[in-house]
């Protein structure tokens, strides 16, 4: 299917469908990059509902069709930068998270949005092992969540979201490291307090709540100054990582006055 092109799309060439669907960090299905492609087919994504709650006017369990009601799906080609210093360009299909939040009515006291991934060890073999305190959780500050760059994606390359990429619905926050873009969402909660996030809870020294792409703040174990664009070529080399993954014009204002080496 063809979707209208977003004005927020990058003009960089997207990675191939094969690359995007065979190189995934989705620890619910295993530790290796090819585990999600191997095991995610077992995931049941229909029926699907998202429990929306917390400081909202209209809380409740929203069926996926209901979540999408009234939202305009568009194709948005985004740079995707993993905290592991590799990157891709992905043509997502999705809509702005702000559209959904406005529909359920955000109450004045809400300052953060918390997200949760499906917990279903029977279909997600990675959840049967240790290492991570399941379910996976993530969070955004409300102004980050309301930014037009933040989308809920339901597909890529014009097709339904492949299961290994977070079917049926996932977050995409293109100026943050990939682990912020939580997959297979079943719960969205508006809160007054900053919610816990999985990687920060696991390794607070290495992964912060903000996780903005920032070439000047290194991961304690590796540099973030450059990145390797996933490519079938052996000699593609590396490219400079851009501040906020190249979206500084749109989002730098959100962090005015903040020390980003402290709020990493």
């Amino acid at each position, binding site marked *: 299917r063809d979707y209208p092109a977003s004005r927020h799309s990058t003009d960089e060439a997207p990675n*191939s469908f*094969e*690359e995007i669907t*065979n*190189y995934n960090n989705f620890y619910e299905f295993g*530790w290796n*990059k*090819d585990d999600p492609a191997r095991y995610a087919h077992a995931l049941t994504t229909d029926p699907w509902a998202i429990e929306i709650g917390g400081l909202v006017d209209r809380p409740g369990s929203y069926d996926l069709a209901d979540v999408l009601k009234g939202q305009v799906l568009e194709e948005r080609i985004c740079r995707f930068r993993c905290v*592991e210093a*590799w990157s891709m360009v992905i043509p997502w299909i999705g809509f702005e998270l702000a559209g959904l939040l406005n529909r359920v009515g955000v109450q004045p006291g809400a300052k953060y949005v918390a997200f949760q991934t499906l917990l279903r060890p029977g279909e997600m073999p990675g959840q049967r092992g240790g*290492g*991570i305190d399941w379910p996976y959780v993530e969070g955004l500050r409300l102004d980050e969540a309301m930014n037009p760059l933040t989308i809920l994606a339901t597909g890529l390359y014009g097709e339904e979201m492949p299961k290994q990429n977070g079917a049926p619905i996932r977050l995409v926050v293109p100026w943050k490291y990939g682990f912020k873009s939580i997959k297979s969402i079943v719960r969205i909660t508006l809160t007054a307090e900053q919610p816990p996030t999985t990687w920060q809870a*696991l390794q607070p020294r290495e992964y912060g709540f903000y996780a903005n792409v920032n070439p000047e703040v290194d991961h304690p*174990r*590796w*540099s973030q*100054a*450059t990145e*390797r664009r*996933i490519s*079938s070529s*052996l*000699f*593609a*080399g*590396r490219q400079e990582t851009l501040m906020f993954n190249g979206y500084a014009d749109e989002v730098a204002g959100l962090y005015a006055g903040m020390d980003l080496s402290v709020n990493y």
Partner: protein
Amino acid sequence: MLRLAGLANAGSRRLPEWAVWLAGLIPLAWLVWLTFTGGLGVDPVRGIEHRLGKTGLWFLIGTLAIPPLRALTGVNLLRHRRAVGLLSFLYIALHLTAWIWLEMGLLWAQAIRDLARRPYLFFGITAFLLLLPLALTSNKAAIRGLGRNWRRLHLLVWPAAGLGVLHYLWQMKIVSAEGWIWAAILAALLIWRVIQPWIRTRRQKIRPGIRAESLSD
């Protein structure tokens, strides 16, 4: 068991060194094949790098496993230890080349800065530098020339293997089961290496006693 060991030893004695080299190069040939047939998935750079590193580590731990293998099963592969060790060095050197060339895209300045500042890279490069003199002295002339010091020098294989395993564990976001298995194998080999001389001297002390007892029966 002893018969099996005897057969293995007869085979090992007849096995020429070039055959060990040929067998040791199979993983490399397989990697080249996978690279050119698209068998490494969508990120061949990572596949090449990781496979070279892991194969190097396997061979390195393989050289350390040869003496306990003989002590525990009687299978004597000592005469092939040099080939296994040099194969290990070859894979590790190729791993380093793949990192600087394919992964870092020959960005030498960033590569050197990272080597100094990132523990896992520092462990890796230190292990390589420790192995370098061992590879250079793995020949008859050096063994003759160095005398007793050759054995002392080649004890460096232990810190090199330790740093190699640390390097492998440290680059993971979370250490996998496989990572812990390799750490455990190395720890077991090290424990064996430390207590084995002690066991040997104890055995030598006990044996005359046993003989005397059996004579008195």
